[in-house]
């Protein structure tokens, strides 16, 4: 007799951990709530990307079609204007591939916001994207780019063959127009994440390596390097399961739980909006379809800063990724 068993290896099944994140917080007498002011609106323009990285928590690729419409982009801009968001952090996928990308950047700047773009470097070599560096400069955009290592082998293993070489060429183009060359000028920040099932090294130490090696080997420079822990969700969780690393990785994250990382967690100071206009506590929750607490407005059109201040944050097992060791956020390690 055949029996139907539940699928336990789906990337949507949360990773197995010895204690829930909530229990861990309670054990340390900590409550996770948002800060008094929501400073950043993180806008995910959708899943379309020119790359298909092995660790991608968005599951983005050139074949994905889910992207933000102009109507939703207008609602986003209306919210940025109305509540004077200090920071707009634009991500994807490759957000530049969305036809509303330049509209969002220009209007956010016009509204007085500082604009960060999670730019994958290689997208500037796609058709009609050649002028991206100049567009970034014109609007004073802070560019934040993933480069998992300063060598081709590791970078290409995670992001695809040839990505490293293209990334270096892109950095050379950005350097040539004034990005990442120091001082108070245009900011080019890099993001390191481990190429495998291990935690990132101390941010200061690996930043020094990147600076030295990228300058010596390729003559390129940048401002800051942020270390980010791989979140056990989507493609990376699938990799953990296929490679037999899930248990060990999750144990490592739980054992490295650091209550000092709580205060600087990104979910405390940002709200995340997806390509449909729905609201989340962070981009990872967005990918897991974990919306903001049900008592809050769920859509960008209904956003209210008063209600989102000090809100209860929705958590699950993946949150151990942000509290391990020196912590992890969109701005890198949170414990300096």
């Amino acid at each position, binding site marked *: 007799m055949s029996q139907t068993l539940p699928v336990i290896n789906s990337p949507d099944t949360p990773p197995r951990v010895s204690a829930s994140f909530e229990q861990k917080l309670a054990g340390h007498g900590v409550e996770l709530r948002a800060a008094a002011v929501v400073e950043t609106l993180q806008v995910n323009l959708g899943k379309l990307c020119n790359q298909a990285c092995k660790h991608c928590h968005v599951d983005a690729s050139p074949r994905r079609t889910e992207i933000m419409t102009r109507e939703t982009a207008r609602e986003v801009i209306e919210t940025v204007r109305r509540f004077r968001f200090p920071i707009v952090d634009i991500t994807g996928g490759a957000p530049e591939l969305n036809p509303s990308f330049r509209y969002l950047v220009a209007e956010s700047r016009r509204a007085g916001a500082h604009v960060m773009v999670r730019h994958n470097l290689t997208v500037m070599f796609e058709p009609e994207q050649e002028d991206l560096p100049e567009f970034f400069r014109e609007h004073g955009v802070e560019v934040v780019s993933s480069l998992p*290592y300063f060598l081709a082998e590791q970078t290409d293993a995670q992001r695809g063959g040839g990505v490293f070489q293209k990334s270096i060429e892109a950095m050379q183009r950005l350097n040539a127009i004034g990005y990442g060359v120091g001082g108070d000028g245009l900011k080019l920040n890099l993001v390191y994440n481990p190429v495998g099932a291990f935690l990132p090294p101390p941010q200061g130490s690996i930043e020094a390596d990147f600076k030295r090696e990228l300058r010596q080997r390729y003559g390129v420079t940048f401002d800051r390097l942020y270390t980010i822990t791989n979140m056990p969700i989507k493609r990376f969780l699938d990799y953990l399961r296929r490679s037999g690393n899930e248990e060990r990785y999750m144990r490592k994250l739980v054992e490295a739980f650091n209550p000092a990382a709580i205060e600087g967690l990104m979910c405390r100071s940002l709200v995340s909006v997806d390509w449909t206009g729905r609201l989340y506590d962070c981009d990872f929750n967005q990918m897991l379809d974990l919306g903001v607490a049900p008592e809050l407005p769920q859509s960008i059109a209904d956003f209210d800063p008063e209600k989102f201040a000090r809100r209860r944050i929705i958590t699950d097992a993946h949150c151990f990724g942000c509290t391990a060791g020196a912590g992890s956020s969109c701005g890198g390690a949170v414990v300096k």
Partner: protein
Amino acid sequence: MEYVTAMSYYEEDDLQRFGEVGKHRPDLFEKFMAWYLACQEDGALSRREKALIGLAVAHALQCPYCIDAFSQSCLEAGSNMEQMTEAIHMASALRGGASLVHGVQAHNSVGKVSM
């Protein structure tokens, strides 16, 4: 035909059970752990340099637990396989050299009984 997997003397998961050694004479185990962990902190040498030394020594000792642990430590200190392989070659070259230099003993021994 049924295959039976023989239990190995070295089980990967046993590394997680290291603390069980402290069941008897926990005072000694605690002293060891404090020393072991303190050794690995940043000092005159960086954590990364110490992890590479650990990896090299682990290979010289041929301890699979230590190789597992220090391979991870090296990665988490930001080292890459090229650097780690150089450390492993250092350990191996010393082991090889330590054997080879005993060739002088053989020369001496042979010299003593030769005309």
